[in-house]
């Protein structure tokens, strides 16, 4: 898969999210605020899908882990009186990660199809679990009345502060995603290119898949916290199984070859949905159509296609797709990790 330069996508994504901190200071339009808040949540969740897609795994569990993170933060605020933003963000990362660890060890040793189906089931089941545990989660009523979060003791109560927190969470998610994908770059590439070959050369594939899955679950949890904080309620409808395909669509349509993909995909599609919100029921069909187009005609998604076009224009041709560099990557990864 074509990438800009080695870490171009990671650096660009973090830089863009860093710059987006300025937006709430430039404007105070309610439309911009609400849309950017939704985008921040969507980007955070899309990073979760992105990490799994780096290993050729499609996850439907993003809403499930969002719910775990979001409810964990809400319960900590309501019952534990925890209001510090850093503590809540960390909690929303750790709680779903702890759930993902045993589950990942269990299903990621099996073929990829088990992962896909079990994540799909997990999202369905978590909805039922919320309804079955009204004492803890509020059941169908959800949880309301969380105290406002604080940053260094300052209360984050007004719209701008809530938006800044959402951008901050998305920024932290981008940093974590970049760290994971840079740290495991060769392992991910080896798994994506040829899993059997990687395994035969000594790479313990399932171990890296579990690391990726745990990180992805944590990122989704952060998105859940961000969403709960924005809506001031933790409610099962925020984490519906149907929403899992949205996060998948953002990542695939934006482009799964670079970290810019989920950022661009989530931004464009959420912004479009906000503008055409009166025809919201058609957005899923549009996502479906775009996914089919990407798979059949534009494998790199928006970012990958633009990057390929740019490279063609500027005449920078790079040889790709031959077997030799893949074997090289796999060998390198296997050698280093043992």
């Amino acid at each position, binding site marked *: 898969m074509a990438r800009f330069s080695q870490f171009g996508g990671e650096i660009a994504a973090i830089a863009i999210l860093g710059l987006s901190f300025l937006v709430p200071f430039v404007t105070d339009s309610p439309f911009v605020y609400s849309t950017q808040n939704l985008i921040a949540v969507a980007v955070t969740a899309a990073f979760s899908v992105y990490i799994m897609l780096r290993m050729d795994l*499609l996850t439907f569990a993003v809403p499930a882990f969002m719910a775990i993170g979001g409810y964990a933060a809400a319960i900590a605020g309501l019952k534990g009186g925890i209001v510090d933003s850093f503590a809540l963000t960390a909690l929303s990362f750790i709680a779903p990660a702890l759930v993902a660890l045993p589950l990942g060890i269990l299903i990621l040793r099996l073929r990829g199809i088990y992962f896909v189906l079990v994540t799909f089931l997990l999202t369905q089941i978590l909805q*039922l679990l919320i309804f079955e545990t009204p004492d803890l989660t509020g059941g169908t009523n959800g949880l309301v009345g969380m105290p406002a979060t604080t940053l260094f003791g300052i209360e984050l109560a007004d719209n701008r502060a809530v938006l800044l927190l959402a951008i901050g969470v998305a920024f932290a998610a981008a940093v974590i995603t970049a760290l994971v994908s840079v740290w495991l770059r060769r392992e991910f590439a080896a798994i994506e290119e040829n899993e059997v070959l990687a395994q035969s050369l000594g790479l313990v594939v399932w171990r890296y898949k579990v690391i990726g899955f745990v990180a992805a679950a944590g990122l989704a949890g952060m998105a859940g916290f961000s969403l709960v904080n924005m809506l001031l309620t933790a409610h099962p409808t925020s984490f519906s199984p149907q929403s899992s395909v949205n996060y998948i669509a953002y990542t695939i349509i934006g482009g799964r070859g670079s970290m810019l993909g989920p950022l661009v995909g989530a931004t464009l599609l959420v912004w479009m949905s906000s503008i055409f919100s009166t025809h919201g*029921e058609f957005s*899923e*069909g549009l996502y479906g*159509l775009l996914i*089919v187009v990407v798979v059949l005609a534009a494998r790199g998604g928006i970012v990958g296609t633009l990057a390929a076009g740019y490279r063609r224009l500027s005449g920078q041709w790079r040889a790709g797709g031959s077997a030799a560099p893949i074997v090289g990557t796999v060998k390198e990864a296997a050698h280093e990790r043992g």
Partner: protein
Amino acid sequence: MASFVSAGLIGISLGAQYALLALGFTLIFGILGVVNFAHGGFYVLGGYAAYSCVTFLGLPYPLAVVAAMLATGALGYVFELFVVERVVDDHLATLMLTLGLYLMIGTGIQAVYGPESPQFGFPVTGTLRFAGFYMPLENLVVLAVCLVAIAGVYALMYRTDLGRGLRALADNRQVAATQGLRPKLLFPLAFALSCGLAGLTGALVTPILSLGPLVGEPVLAMAFLTVILGGFGSIIGATVAAFLVGLIEAYSVVYLGGSKGALALFVLVLVVLIVRPSGLFGKEARGA
């Protein structure tokens, strides 16, 4: 005791429905290696097709069911031939394509029929009372048709040349191809068969349960559960597991209430994945 027997009958009736769905799903996976995410979509489409035939064309219900099966089968054939076939060996790509199709089916149905559930009732009503227990007649009719359809699938797969060819492709595509079987001809047929089964189930079951643009999703989840339990690609496994799932669901509704049955089934799936990942009849499941 009466409620025990009644719940058992309901469970068998549910199991027969799940078996039809899971058979279609597992056939496509076994033969093409494709996870068909649109399977739930074809189920919904079958329901709406039968509804349209009855309501707008005035066809009798049995004819409408047949028409729904043929229509969904034809759509599946076309989709495989022109879309899935181009990337058939790329698991992730086919998964994304069928997911995209599922989203388009859902939106298409909403655009044509609106988001509300249409009035679509089963033509046979009434209750059979026998020795203290009772059973709705429509469930019995559905059960009978489902059992005939399951028998038909078995006859097709084990008694005809087409079935032998499909099973050969599932066993080993390369060897089958060198023996003269043509995947390009048989793949669309297999896809059509599977989607037709989903459409048939939808046409039969949605008048009893409910019809709406989103009813496919829980059905798809049940098909997934069944296929994991039975073992991927295994025809017998899917059938046995489907009846197991149906019985567990029916009894848990009666004795546990609410959605605890689905939770119990999910836990069962996790246990199966720990103890025996290949499922109950996993011998036929494809290797990595």
